[in-house]
């Protein structure tokens, strides 16, 4: 998530730089008294690159898609109860030293 966030920030900075370039271009046009028809080609390319970076960040940062199937492997309903209040440890299991292979759902 850190990398996606950084890429998003870079994308926004590129957009800000493109805006600044367009403002300078417009003031140049005011001096030469021409009409503004569109930003120069470099600015358009810069906007495209910024859009691509932001798009990549927008898809990566919010998080992964989780599966909705109830029977898939990561949606197991069978799990050890997570409520710590009801966990007791002072039982006969102390006498055993076995590894229990049940999967925890976190």
């Amino acid at each position, binding site marked *: 998530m850190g990398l996606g966030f950084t890429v*998003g920030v870079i*994308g*926004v900075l590129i*957009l800000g730089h*493109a*805006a600044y370039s*367009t*403002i300078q271009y*417009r003031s140049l046009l005011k001096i030469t008294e021409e009409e*503004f028809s*569109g*930003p120069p080609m470099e*600015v*358009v390319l810069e*906007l495209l690159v*910024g*859009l691509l970076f*932001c*798009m990549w*960040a*927008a*898809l990566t*940062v*919010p*998080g*992964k*898609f*989780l*599966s*909705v*199937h*109830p*029977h*898939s492997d990561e*949606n197991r*309903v*069978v*799990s*050890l*109860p*997570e*409520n710590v209040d009801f966990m007791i440890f002072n039982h006969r299991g102390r006498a055993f030293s076995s590894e229990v292979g*049940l999967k925890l*759902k976190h």
Partner: protein
Amino acid sequence: MAVGHGDSSSSDKKSTDALSDLQTFNAENLQSNMKVIYYSRTFLSIIGGVIAGILGFKGLIGFVFYFLVMAVTSAALTAKAKFSIHSYFDTWNRVLLDGFFGGLMSFVLFWTFAYDIVHIF
């Protein structure tokens, strides 16, 4: 013994038919997926608005640009879900249309904002 009575805390389900797999789904994960789509769309609407303002779009062409950005977003979200929508959502409409008009408001706001900053002041 460790197999408790299923619906303890985390995964509550909606089911109308116990045999049909598509009717039963894990609602908590579905909500999380919807949040992911919402965040992605909102952020890209804002970015699209800023770009439309910088490019100097006026009038209808700006809205056309918004639809274009949303179409690309939908395609990208479908690709993120690895094209198997039914394992992450219940209907297609959620991926394609959810958050569309909320994003439109943000788009117009940032479009006006960026246009004013770049072209008027």
